[in-house]
């Protein structure tokens, strides 16, 4: 029998703060010692709702951890009933969480130049990563219009590029436009963002022969590998055949070259 030193379980985390940082976007700081300490950049937590109709977990990436204080920060958009409920939480309230879940980004030793590419709500999990990576860090952040978290990245990025679709802030264009425009190169690329963006990041990596790690997203039933709901197609490097892998427990981070996007 596999030994069970400590079984993980859902637990209430204290809300330390919960503030709006952009239109419909909130930043919540939660206190939970174990989860905060165990988290690796790119991992996520399940948040659970109190609402009557919302049984399933809401997976949200961990943006930053302050493990000395046992706290962690998440940044989330209000898009439906669950995130709406979270946005109402006040400091002192609690929220049930489970985590950290999934595998974070591989931080290989010896990688010297890092390219970090985030789009929209995919930007938050890249913050802790950028903090922890050692070497030269080139960060490209793409937004639709309004920006957020840019200042936080300034502390850790060696180069920071900000783009908006409409050019209202930073440069105009997509993250790929920026990568091209500034001839950004490096040894490893780390990305998180909307599927449409990742679908362009993947060929960019291949074209420039840069190893990439991308974070996938899918509707989840459990978040820890039990329901086989949250799969993505992943190519077996030997057989060249794809198979479905679970985003929650085999990912959410996959190597860019492995992922097969449906067209």
């Amino acid at each position: 029998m596999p030994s069970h030193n400590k079984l993980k379980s859902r637990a209430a985390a204290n809300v330390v703060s919960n503030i709006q940082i952009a239109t419909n976007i909130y930043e919540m700081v939660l206190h939970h010692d174990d989860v905060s300490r165990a988290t690796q950049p790119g991992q996520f937590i399940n948040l659970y709702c109190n609402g009557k109709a919302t049984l399933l977990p809401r997976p949200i990436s961990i943006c930053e951890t302050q493990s000395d204080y046992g706290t962690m920060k998440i940044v989330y958009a209000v898009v439906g009933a669950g995130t709406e409920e979270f946005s109402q939480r006040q400091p002192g309230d609690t929220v049930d969480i489970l985590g950290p879940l999934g595998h974070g980004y591989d931080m290989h030793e010896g990688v010297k130049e890092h390219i970090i590419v985030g789009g929209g709500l995919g930007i938050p999990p890249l913050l802790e990563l950028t903090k922890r990576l050692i070497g030269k860090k080139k960060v490209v952040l793409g937004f639709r219009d309004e920006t957020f978290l840019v200042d936080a990245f300034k502390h850790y990025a060696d180069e920071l590029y900000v783009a908006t679709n409409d050019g209202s802030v930073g440069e105009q264009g997509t993250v790929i436009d920026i990568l091209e425009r500034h001839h950004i190169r490096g040894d490893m690329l780390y990305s998180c963002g909307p599927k449409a963006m990742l679908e362009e990041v993947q060929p960019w990596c291949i074209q420039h022969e840069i190893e990439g790690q991308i974070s996938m997203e899918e509707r989840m039933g459990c978040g820890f590998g039990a329901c086989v709901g949250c799969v993505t197609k992943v190519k077996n490097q030997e057989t060249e055949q794809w198979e479905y892998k679970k985003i929650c427990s085999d990912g959410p981070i996959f190597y860019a070259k492995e992922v097969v996007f449906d067209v």
Partner: protein
Amino acid sequence: MCKSMEVNIAGITFKNPVMTASGTFQPRECGDYVDMNQLGAVVVKGIASEPWTGNATPRIAETYGGMLNSVGLQNPGVDVFLQEDLPFLEQCDTKIIVNIAGRMIQDYCEVAEKLQGTSIAMLELNISCPNIKEGGVAFGTDASMVEKVTREVKKYCDKPLIVKLSPNVTDITEMARAAVSGGADAISLINTLLGMVIDVHQRTPILSTKMGGLSGPAIKPIAVRMVYQVANAVEVPIIGMGGITTGEDAIEFILAGADAVAVGTAGLIHPTALTDVVQGIQYYMDRYNVKHIKELRGLVK
């Protein structure tokens, strides 16, 4: 574990009546949350003769008090299961039940045959998954097919056979009787109800398959009703499931006529639900001074 929770189904003794519901428990991953040694049985996700890729995503949609899934029986096939998963499961002090999936009768038989002579305790025949488009569905909603597939599979394996019924039928007792005629040693029910959720903003169904299987607390009253009906129609042991979340929910099924219960969706939402249910049953038995869990079986007439 208290001895009074022991149940016997078709000659197999389970330390308690709580099992995982097929497809909702992956031993490797869930082992971080649940001590499998505390469970009556682990029921493995549907295994087919060949690997199945399953359906495209999205495979999950939320509903009030439940969820839809259209996983479509993604599984590595019986050979990989035997090589990789079974040895892992064998380390646990619990019974192993393998849920078998198929598109044609022959598929089921092939899996059953390969499981012969292994350490697994029982087979569960899944003829009721609403998420596969081929034969599987028709099997579960046509009494003569239920009888036929049961009879055929029985020929290939002498381990006790559980037949899992679909709730998407007019008369569940007809299907239960057919399974028993075919030689079923036990009946499990219910599988998921066919449902659909539409995203009104995108104006598309949420699931890639449009429809999927509804599970969770929302379906419990339907499941309890069907367990009650089947318990009053056939003599074989019954494994009841559908929305069980607490020990009292489990007791409700047992009072309705179930010998054992399975917990599915609740364990996705509360990873410790399975062991919570075991403890909840124990608590109820202590409170009402129930010596043997079987005393409660079918007490509601």
